């Protein structure tokens, strides 16, 4: 029985690794034997729920997992949080602050974990950051250059949920709509409900546009939690098997 169980543990097949641009000075991509999986989606898209389920499943299957996400770096997470509360940062500053947060986690968590052979689950990656900036009118070529430091993930899933459904889920959970997730800084509407719907619709358009360049998988997030989990498992299973 014991031997039998062990046979079920799949050792992930190393794939071709590369950075979007020049990457990080001194890092050899071929040494990064683990797998990087990114899950993108708005608040209320079921991202965190799905990641928690994936972690449980992957660990049961014998894989070591490491999680990263936005605003979690040792270097700038507190400062970024404080700056956002005051809403005093201009768009380029906020954008670069988030890039710094991303780079710190990339170099100190993602790359070492991949080198050690872990499966890294990113609760949002560079695409959310790029989409937010695109909606705010930032230059795409500028963004592409900055995020040339990023490693190309083995899989990226974008959980797409209709804006109206997102409203319902966020209100059911928090009884309020978050200032930033409503894009209130853009001044689309003084009404937070209208602003949320307009902003999330614009974010979806930006994601669709990015999808054409970066080729990630769009998952219909309007379905049941279980349905989405099983689709993700199937797709990630294929990635681990090197398919």
């Amino acid at each position: 029985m014991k031997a039998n169980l062990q046979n079920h543990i799949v050792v992930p097949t190393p794939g071709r690794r590369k950075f979007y641009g020049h990457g990080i000075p001194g890092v050899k991509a071929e040494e990064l034997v683990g797998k990087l999986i990114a899950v993108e989606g708005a608040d209320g898209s079921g991202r965190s729920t799905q990641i928690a389920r994936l972690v449980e499943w992957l660990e049961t299957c014998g894989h070591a997992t490491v999680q990263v996400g936005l605003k979690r770096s040792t270097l700038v997470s507190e400062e970024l949080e404080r700056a956002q509360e005051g809403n005093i940062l201009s768009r380029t500053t906020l954008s670069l602050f988030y890039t710094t947060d991303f780079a710190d986690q990339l170099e100190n968590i993602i790359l070492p974990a991949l080198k050690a052979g872990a499966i890294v689950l990113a609760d949002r990656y560079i695409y959310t950051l790029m989409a937010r900036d695109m909606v705010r009118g930032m230059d795409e070529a500028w963004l592409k250059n900055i995020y040339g430091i990023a490693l190309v993930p083995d899989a990226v899933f974008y959980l797409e949920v209709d804006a109206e459904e997102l409203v319902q889920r966020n209100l059911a959970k928090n009884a309020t709509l978050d200032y930033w997730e409503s894009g209130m800084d853009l001044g689309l509407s003084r009404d937070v409900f209208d602003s949320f719907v307009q902003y999330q619709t614009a974010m979806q358009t930006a994601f669709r546009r990015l999808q054409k360049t970066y080729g990630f998988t769009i998952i219909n997030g309007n379905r049941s939690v279980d349905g989405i989990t099983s689709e993700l498992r199937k797709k990630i299973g294929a990635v681990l098997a090197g398919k």
Partner: protein
Amino acid sequence: MKTFAQLKFPGRLIAVEGLDGSGKSTQIYLLRRWLEAEGVRVYFSEWNSSELVKSATSKGKKRELLTPTTFSLIHATDFADRYERHLLPLLRAGYVVLCDRYIYTAFARDVVRGCPPAWVRGMYNFAALPDLTFFFKADLEVSLNRILDGRPKLKFFEAGMDLRLSSDPYESFRIFQGRILEQYLAMSTEFNFVVMDANERIEAQQSIVRQMVSRRIDLDRFKRQSPLPLPPPVRPRGKLVELEDEPAE
């Protein structure tokens, strides 16, 4: 990339660049005093001084958390904050803005640290170029001695210790500054630096600086209608020679 004048901003930006110990901060301070006395609307901004970003930068430096990439990004964040919140509106309002270090500091330093030049330059391409840039060129030994004669305790990043050039901070600082100087010299023609002989006496340099400024900028256009009373002299850090990364506290 264009200058503020080329972009039809009413204001003008003057930057000083050079190694630590080249005397550039003294010169821009004296320029500022003169412009204030002349009744010119003037604003001074220093590299690495955004209140918002400061706590992250000093934490990163103290705990040696910074890599070449995050070092570069956090300084760009600091610059962007000052640029968007102070520099742009002031230049729109017709101020003469004086910058102690501008994007060329990043171009030189981040590249020495190993970041690709195209990446660094691309990151800063939201910023317009200065209308006038003074580069204070002193002999490497002169700048080094100005700093090292005081035998300061060199901090990790300012000595370039993260580059593992030498285990001796003073030796590391010498090599690091030498490489930065090479980068500055390579940019000098491309960006039209006014190259100043920083080995000259302070007064001689200042007289050239003031001449250049009045020749290149029509200062009368920037004067207040009713001059403000001259503010008291505030030297930011009360010293003639200082290291760029010294914390302000």
